[in-house]
């Protein structure tokens, strides 16, 4: 454990710390950010009216559009005076948003990344290969400063040139790989193509995040790279990677409650849901200086538990993110997450999760086609065998989701590979 005093803080003490820090944050945004002043005025309240952690639920949400509408610096507490760093979200789901950090914000970010890396086994002697993109994306630099804080040796390779990455990992004695899970698979496949056995590397663990991935995908990555794979969670609007991270128990991700307050809401009714219920994660930052956010809607679907964890950390655990409310496809009225399709494909066993969902509309009816790349294990030289496989996938999806789909087997490597995030869905309905 990187910081036992904080990571294993007794829960009563943690709650007092959270409330104290929440009060400071609310005072700051009320004094300094016109957007939040307006919000308090609209509900006829002042920060002093928030008298407990539960009162937080009285405040309205902050949404991504609030960041966009105040682009670029409108939600910053003090303009750029104390800001030493800017990051920006990828803009894949719309206009970019800009986030800023004071020196103190960066220190805390490095601290939380050091906790996450320690959870995944990183120590001073580790060689940490960072294949997250460097630049405006928070992945690369976020992990970078955490690994340096631990005193590990950092290889800031960023994304791309996968063959070169494999060679460097082998030559430099990399012990920990940090990248997106889809890129980890890409690396594993490249290693196979180069006929390099993972046993020839020193690699022991991987810290994978920035996109939802299933436990099945974890097993595939662990088997192919012969490592222990850890999940990490974060988002730039709240901080970046390191908001929550897995400990060796791997029974959920510890969310750094000394710096954030987490809630789960019903995305449809906006109501706060009880502990254990699955819904949308909402986060309030309580130590951020440059850009605090109050009740930020993450769009990530998960659940929370405060049950004690065998690892000794007391911070609550969130389940692996199972999807995004904005990735959610509504097909003929049924909610479908790409991650559900992924787990079906992996449960069938012989598949690797290279797939793409193509949604279209014929007349008034939505259609879903699932393209699945054929692998060696799945291949049969008989038409009957391949048609049987297509039918099996169709039936499993129909059983789980109750919708009929078309399954199309495609040749290897024909679904675009990602250096960063995977494009799992093509929704043609939006184009019409």
């Amino acid at each position, binding site marked *: 454990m990187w910081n036992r005093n904080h990571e294993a803080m007794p829960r009563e003490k943690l709650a007092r710390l959270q409330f104290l820090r929440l009060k400071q944050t609310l005072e700051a945004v009320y004094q300094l950010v016109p957007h939040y002043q307006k919000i308090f005025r609209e509900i006829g309240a002042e920060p002093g009216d928030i008298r407990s952690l539960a009162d937080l639920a009285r405040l309205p949400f902050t949404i991504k559009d609030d960041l966009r509408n105040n682009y670029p610096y409108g939600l910053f507490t003090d303009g750029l005076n104390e800001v030493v760093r800017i990051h920006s979200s990828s803009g894949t789901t719309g206009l970019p948003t800009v986030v800023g950090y004071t020196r103190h914000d960066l220190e805390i970010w490095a601290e939380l990344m050091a906790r996450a890396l320690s959870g995944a086994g990183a120590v001073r002697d580790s060689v940490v290969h960072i294949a997250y993109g460097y630049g405006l994306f928070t992945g690369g630099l976020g992990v970078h400063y955490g690994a340096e804080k631990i005193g590990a040796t950092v290889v800031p390779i960023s994304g791309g040139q996968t063959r070169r990455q494999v060679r460097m990992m082998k030559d430099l004695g990399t012990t920990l790989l940090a990248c997106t899970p889809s890129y980890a698979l890409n690396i594993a496949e490249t290693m196979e193509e180069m006929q390099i056995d993972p046993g020839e590397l020193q690699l022991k663990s991987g810290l994978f995040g920035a996109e939802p991935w299933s436990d099945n995908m974890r097993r595939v990555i662990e088997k192919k790279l012969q490592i222990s794979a850890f999940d990490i969670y974060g988002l730039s609007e709240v901080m970046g990677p390191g908001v929550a991270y897995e400990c060796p128990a791997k029974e959920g991700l510890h969310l750094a409650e000394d710096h954030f307050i987490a809630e789960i809401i019903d995305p449809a009714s906006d109501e706060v849901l009880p502990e254990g219920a699955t819904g949308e994660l909402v986060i309030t930052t309580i130590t951020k200086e440059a850009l605090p956010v109050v009740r930020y809607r993450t769009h990530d679907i998960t659940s929370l538990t405060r049950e004690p964890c065998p690892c000794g950390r007391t911070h609550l655990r969130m389940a692996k993110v199972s999807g995004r409310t904005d990735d959610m496809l509504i097909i003929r009225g049924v909610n479908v997450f790409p991650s559900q399709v992924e787990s079906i494909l992996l449960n069938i066993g012989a598949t690797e999760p290279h797939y793409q969902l193509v949604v279209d509309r014929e007349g008034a009816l939505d259609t879903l086609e699932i393209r699945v790349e054929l692998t*060696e294990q799945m291949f049969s*030289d*008989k*038409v009957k065998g391949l*048609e049987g496989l297509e039918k099996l996938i169709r039936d499993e999806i129909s059983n789980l989701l109750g919708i009929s789909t078309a399954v199309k087997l495609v*040749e290897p490597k024909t679904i675009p590979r990602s250096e960063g995030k995977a494009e799992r869905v093509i929704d043609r309905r939006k184009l019409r």
Partner: protein
Amino acid sequence: MVKQISIFLENKCGRMIRVSEVLGEAGINIRALSIADTSDFGILRLIVDQPEKACSVLREKGFMASVTEVIALEVPDVPGGLAKALSPLEEAGINIEYLYAFVQKRTADALILVRVENINAALQVLQENDIPVISSERIYSL
């Protein structure tokens, strides 16, 4: 037993040509071929002179290819020739998954390539009934 290459092909332009180019560039000669197709994919089955090499160059070029063992039979190129060769298999309850034929340049006999579920049982039945099975060496060097 003869090694056959099976290749998965999506039904789109140029894939067959690409297979033949890849094999041509590697100096591999196609002896026989057959294709089984549905509306959205096909399985191309090839007999070539260097099956292992063919499979690995195709995989390198991104094709899904595998090696399957099939039986090569020589049957007289006369009416009823095929039935005579296959009826012992049927009588022994050996299911034929698929077969295809080609005519040789130099002899009057036709060659049949047969894919069965239980290849060893099939070979035994054929031997017991004196149906000539052709060696892989002869097929590859046709």
